[in-house]
């Protein structure tokens, strides 16, 4: 089947999921982001790459951090940005989603950045939007959050340079995590030696090993000798839906503590997509400690999104 994300020439047109993208495309994104990285420290933080373009952030799900970094990224590329927070409810159906898109299309926009609580919403919009519009998935349900995964890959590459010898552990609620799904696909595509997921069975998808990972129910075993530790945020509602007993018990079994960090390689880095729950999934001393790269992830979020926005719009038949 044709990959919806690519042009007929195989170039990135939409950015919906890591699934189906080649190592070359992922590397191109990382390299492009790197070319923007010196820019952030300059006094004038703008390039005219997307001047005259209109980008609409469509956030059907609340998010301050992701939306802000997308806005900053667009602004630094000199695009015009419109951010819309659209309260969504379980009753809002595809028709109204489609109507929203059609209305904005009529205003001649060039890109939609979409966050939505339903898996597949980004694909649906990309399939039903005018051909000159690029769609970037800023998180859909439990499916994918590919820009987050790419900023994580960028951060790992900054510290570890090469993916092939790495052992990476992802800890936490894999089942509900679009971030974890995209990270796993990106790590696999980039040739990571070993990917582990660590969680109780209630927070692992049924066929998790089919994603190309090894599953661990014990954090100590899972952390043994790893180079990269990725913590996931634990949502409070997991406690009320009989997936976990208490936050306290979760921290006891799966929280990242100084003690447990010693199982990993001595130069292992600790990552977290944020916002962090101190004392629930990670001890404060680690979040703020020397091995933590959590704040670098945030800064990298801007340049990765600049790279993805400029590449997709460039490839979508519009000379930039």
């Amino acid at each position, binding site marked *: *089947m044709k990959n919806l994300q690519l042009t007929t020439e195989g170039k990135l047109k939409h950015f919906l999921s890591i699934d189906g993208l080649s190592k070359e495309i992922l590397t191109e994104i990382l390299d492009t982001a790197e070319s923007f990285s010196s820019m952030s420290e300059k006094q004038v933080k703008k390039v005219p790459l997307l001047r005259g373009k209109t980008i609409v952030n469509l956030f059907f799900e609340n998010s301050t951090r992701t939306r802000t970094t997308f806005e900053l990224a667009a602004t630094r590329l000199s695009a015009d940005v419109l951010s819309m927070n659209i309260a969504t409810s379980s009753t809002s159906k595809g028709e109204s989603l489609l109507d929203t898109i059609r209305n904005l299309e009529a205003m001649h926009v060039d890109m939609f950045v979409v966050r939505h609580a339903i898996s597949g919403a980004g694909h649906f919009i990309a399939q*039903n939007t005018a051909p000159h519009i690029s769609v970037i998935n800023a998180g859909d*349900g*439990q499916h994918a959050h590919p820009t987050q995964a790419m900023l994580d890959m960028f951060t790992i590459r900054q510290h570890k340079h090469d993916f092939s010898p790495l052992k990476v552990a992802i800890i936490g609620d894999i089942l509900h995590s679009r971030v974890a799904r995209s990270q796993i696909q990106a790590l696999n595509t980039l040739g990571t030696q070993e990917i582990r997921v660590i969680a109780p069975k209630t927070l692992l998808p049924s066929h998790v090993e089919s994603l190309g990972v090894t599953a661990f129910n014990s954090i100590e075993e899972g952390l043994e000798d790893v180079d990269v530790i990725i913590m996931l945020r634990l949502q409070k509602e997991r406690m009320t839906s009989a997936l976990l007993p208490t936050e306290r018990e979760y921290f006891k079994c799966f929280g990242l503590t100084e003690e447990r960090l010693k199982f990993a390689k001595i130069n292992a880095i600790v990552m977290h997509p944020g916002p962090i729950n101190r004392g629930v999934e990670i001890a404060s001393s680690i979040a703020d400690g020397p091995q933590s790269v959590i704040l670098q992830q945030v800064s990298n979020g801007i340049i990765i999104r600049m790279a993805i926005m400029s590449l997709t719009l460039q490839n979508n038949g519009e000379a930039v």
Partner: protein
Amino acid sequence: MKKILISNGHIIDPANKIDQVGSVYIAEGKILAVNEHISDFTPDLSIDAKDNIVCPGFIDLSVRLRDPGQSYKGTILSETTAAASAGVTSLCLPPDTSPVIDTQAVTELIADKAEKASYPQVYPIGALTHQLAGVELSSMFALKQAGCIAVSNATVPLTSLLVLRRAMEYASSHDLLVMYHPDIPSLSKNGCVHEGVFSTRYGLPAIPEASESIAVAQCLELAELTGCRLHFSQISSRRSAIKIQQAKKYGLKVSADVAIHQLHLTEDDIEPFNSSFHVLPPFRSKKDQKSLRENLANGAIDIICSDHQPHDIDAKLGAFPETEPGISSLETLLPLTLRLIEDNAITLNQGIAALTQNPAKTLGINSGALSLGFSADICIFDPNLSWTVNQDNWKSAGHNTPYWGQSLKGRVTHTLQAGSIIYTL
């Protein structure tokens, strides 16, 4: 009434163990003779069925006509026309119409509309509980009197085993067949795909196999307790099939059907986020599909149905989990059944029995066979004729099928209902 002679066709009538080239004589809307020469028979109409197969008309246990209540998705006229073109001469209409088939009045309204359409025989299935709400029993006796052939709660599972037990007891007091869609809602809640490799990869809300097989186990226990005649509608999992097979060996009066698309498509075939593949029960694993085919061949699963669910365009236009489940499947019933034979999963006789003799037996009706004196409900089809699923060849108002645009082999040339030709190609 017209006298009709169908000659030169390959007659397959599993109920009467006929499998040979010959002739069928029809008079007064009934079967007059099969494979014996009748002198002084001057037909008003002769059909040459050379190279075609002549068999009893198909009996489909689950066809949504969307009428009354959702005529923007389909009408009794549009969907019975589709049924006739698919060789279906009798069909069962599940009770989840709007209003629900839980009163005599609604049953009679449907019977009346169906009679006017003068197409396949429509058998309404009455609601098992009032408004399908799973709380109070429906007036089953009145429903039976009005023409309901069985009772069912459609796809709405009962949450109370006590109500299910009472419903089975009450239905069995009136000798009504209970058709049940096995599902444990607390396990399948909000799910839209099978819990497996696909749901893991795409992060979609999933339905575990156990949500069906646990319900099958519970129902089997209750069927034994209550002595009710029980039929499982649209099973999809290996463990369900095995449980039903064991129950049959043990001597329980149970039967089961499977939707034709479940025998062909699995979670591996789903095109990501393509809502034509959104169906309940969901497409399961290769292992489940293999087991469903085996259990169809060994007789644990008796019947193939279409589980026809036509939809309007808007119902399928949205992000996958938000679209409505269901496939418009009447017209792919025959070609996909023939494909099972091509795959050596079952024999042609088994395939036709699963569409004729077996559903007739489950419903307890004198149909599904070319027996002398039976209503002349007949399907004639060309097993080798290829056609494309597209606007020109499609009768149902619902175009929601994963087979849209594909080429299929096997096409109905004539459908006769009570000796009247209701469809010709």
